[in-house]
């Protein structure tokens, strides 16, 4: 039965195969986005000693579906004197890079849509494109608050992209490859082989820049609801507004997935090299303990939870402090650590670079 399915799959035209794979990635991703919004409201609710959404469906599980239906049926309002074409294309420009980046994410060993050589560079390029949606939305809305939000966001994203790029240079140095799958395989061995320890400062820089790149609290000055109402998407309504949110959450999941892949060994099991090999042969338990997609999803979910935790914990940064942190703290830290890393690699230190 299974062979027959696989065989008929490989008999399909290549374009159909790729489309099928894309559906396999995007559908769970969209579901994950929907339920991340639910998780966000629940987690922040519990942190603030509330229950969070609990009316729609059992324990509020159908809340994201209800939200989606509501947004779908709402009118998309075009503001007067807004630039019609750019106003409607801005949400598309926001979501396309957020989805296209998933093409090079390996979910398990070899489970990747496009196993390209320069995968990490591709990711860096695509995450830097998301800012166009924000800028164009801000400008095309013909609204001063939207423009202010877009300007803040543009400066912030460009600043933090540099720190993020430098942090990723450290990963590339340690792994000796730009291919994301190769980077994970370079961390194989045991939990001590993961890049988390030798690249610890870069990991912090990466994740802080990731939070800033996605315009999440405490770096959400692009939205700044207490200062500029909602920033760049203040004039958007209905599905056009929802697409911006889809993009933001898809980007959050992407940053979390990348943190798991680049620093925490992606699909590799933390028990690898610690438990005896025989354990992994046990039925059921062995599969759970062995490396696989579930470890990747678990690590991603952990980082995603950090995003929500940050939002409930930290007050919003002031704009000049954001710029200071990006340019004067994070970038020097990465540059210093790149030198240290060079020395580590030269000396063949520890289990990582031996």
């Amino acid at each position, binding site marked *: 039965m299974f062979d027959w399915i696989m065989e008929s799959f490989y008999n399909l035209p290549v374009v159909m195969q790729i489309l099928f794979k894309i559906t396999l990635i995007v559908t769970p991703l969209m579901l994950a986005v929907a339920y991340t919004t639910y998780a966000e409201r629940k987690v922040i609710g519990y942190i603030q000693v509330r229950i969070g959404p609990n009316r729609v469906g059992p324990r509020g599980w159908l809340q994201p579906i209800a939200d989606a239906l509501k947004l779908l049926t709402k009118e998309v309002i075009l503001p007067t004197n807004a630039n019609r074409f750019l106003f409607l294309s801005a949400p598309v420009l926001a979501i396309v890079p957020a989805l296209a980046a998933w093409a090079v994410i390996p979910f398990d060993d070899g489970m990747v849509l496009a196993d390209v050589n*320069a995968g990490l560079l591709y990711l860096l390029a695509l995450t830097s494109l998301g800012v*166009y949606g924000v800028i164009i939305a801000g400008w095309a809305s013909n609204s001063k608050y939207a423009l202010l939000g877009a300007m803040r966001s543009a400066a912030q994203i460009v600043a933090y*992209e540099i720190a993020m790029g430098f942090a990723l240079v450290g990963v590339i140095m340690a792994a000796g490859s730009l291919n994301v799958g190769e980077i994970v395989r370079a961390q194989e061995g045991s939990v001590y082989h993961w890049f988390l320890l030798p690249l610890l400062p870069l990991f912090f820089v990466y994740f802080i820049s990731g939070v800033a790149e996605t315009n999440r609290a405490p770096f959400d000055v692009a939205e700044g609801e207490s200062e500029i109402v909602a920033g760049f998407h203040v004039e958007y309504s209905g599905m056009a507004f929802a697409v911006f949110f889809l993009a933001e959450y898809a980007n959050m999941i992407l940053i979390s997935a990348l943190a798991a892949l680049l620093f925490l060994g992606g699909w590799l099991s933390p028990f690898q090299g610690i438990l005896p090999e025989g354990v992994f042969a046990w039925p059921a338990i062995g599969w759970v303990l062995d490396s696989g997609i579930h470890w990747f999803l678990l690590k991603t979910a952990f980082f995603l939870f950090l995003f929500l935790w940050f939002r409930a914990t930290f007050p919003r940064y002031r704009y000049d402090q954001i710029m200071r942190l990006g340019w004067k703290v994070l970038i020097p830290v990465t540059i210093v650590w790149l030198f240290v890393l060079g020395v580590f690699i030269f000396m063949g230190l520890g289990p990582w670079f031996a």
Partner: protein
Amino acid sequence: MTFELLLFYVFGAILLGAALALITVRNPVYAALFLVLCFFTAAAIWLLAEAEFLAIVLVLVYVGAVMVLFLFVVMMLDINVEQLREGFTEYLPAGLVVAAAMATVLTLVITRFITMDPPEPAGADYANTLELGRILYTDYVYPFEIAAVILLVAIIAAISLTMRRRPDTKSIDPTEQMKARREDRVRLVSMESEPRERKKKKGA
């Protein structure tokens, strides 16, 4: 016609169209966006030429950073297009000279390479990044280092040119703010508690 060739012509047509629109369109924001489109299609053509590193870096640096700042400035400034067009006839001779020089150079390059056979496509294990890195850090290491130093000097020069002390602004240095300790702001004073005044008796 192979699929790659078809893609090349499609991207080439978009690139030429966007470049033409870039210099003819009136709205400066549209012009900047057309330039973004130019970079993008140029990157796609480089990808077809198996130069994936250059293509992605073109998108990363020019589209992701440079053009964002361009748009930033263009959107912030209230550019008067009429004023910009005023000196058109005045600068026309100089422009024509530059155009002629560029056309000559381009023709020289194209006529030299147009008769060349297309190079053999590289194998599947060819990595553009690796090859570029190998050449940059071996054969061309000195030019590469010199270019890096020139860029560093340019960065320092740009920063020192734009840096100015402005005592009239009310901006606060975050470093100074971070240095503030509780002791600087809060003073705990221990005071003897005063006995509560008794309510005065009626009629007193």
